[in-house]
């Protein structure tokens, strides 16, 4: 039994939107960062689905690169989070608002 590609795409859209929503709702900076990972994963699913559709391996390669980038981002992002925690003693994003109008 085959599955329409569009199902995969909609699933990816669902995950992506949940990622966006968690970015908005979560208060802990680490989990907000995880939301971005969720969004990237949704994009990866899209890539794989299209790679399957086009019989093109490039789509899959893209996913590798996204993984590498995600890992690099994670290293830097978590370092920034540690730095923020050092100066503020909090991870709550609502309290990181010194800079504003």
């Amino acid at each position: 039994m085959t599955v329409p590609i569009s199902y995969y795409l909609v699933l990816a859209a669902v995950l992506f939107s949940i990622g966006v929503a968690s970015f908005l709702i979560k208060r802990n900076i680490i989990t907000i960062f995880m939301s971005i990972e969720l969004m990237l994963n949704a994009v990866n699913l899209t890539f794989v689905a299209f790679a399957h559709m086009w019989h093109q391996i490039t789509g899959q390669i893209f996913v590798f690169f996204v993984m590498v980038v995600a890992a690099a981002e994670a290293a830097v992002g978590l370092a920034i989070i540690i730095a923020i925690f050092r100066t503020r003693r909090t991870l709550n994003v609502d309290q990181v608002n010194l800079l504003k109008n």
Partner: protein
Amino acid sequence: MQLALFIIFGLLAVAGAINFLLQRHPINSALSLIVVMMSLAVLYWSLGAEFLAAAQVIVYSGAVMVLFVFVVMLLNAGEEERTHGSRAAYFAGIPGATAIFCLLSFVFLTNGKAFGSTDLINHLTHTTNNIAEISQVLFRDLLLPFEVTSVLILVAILGAVVLARKEQ
């Protein structure tokens, strides 16, 4: 069988994502995210990307998420308080996110016919060896991006060192 796989693991991924959203403790959220990633790995496999599926498990769930969990532990982050610093996130953001979802799904579903369906058997018979093909593309056509990621990783290492080091 593919449909069954899709339904089971698709639902699992969505459930994991929603759980990720609802859980207040970062560790629980991280674990839910790992569930999502594992389910996605299965879906990758079902789309004929078995190498990717393995990498997803090893790199994403194995390395990246461990890093997250590690930092959560390190900073001893507890359950997050539901502070109300931003109402714009609800008034503007949630409708925005919903609208994005609707628009994306609209486009995907209206174009559904053009996308066709998965065809795993055909895919498997036509592509002889997934890994061989991947390395063909990765180390030939896309050699440069591959090489350049080394600079990216260099930057990341350098950044992590700079940022995490204590000011003297």
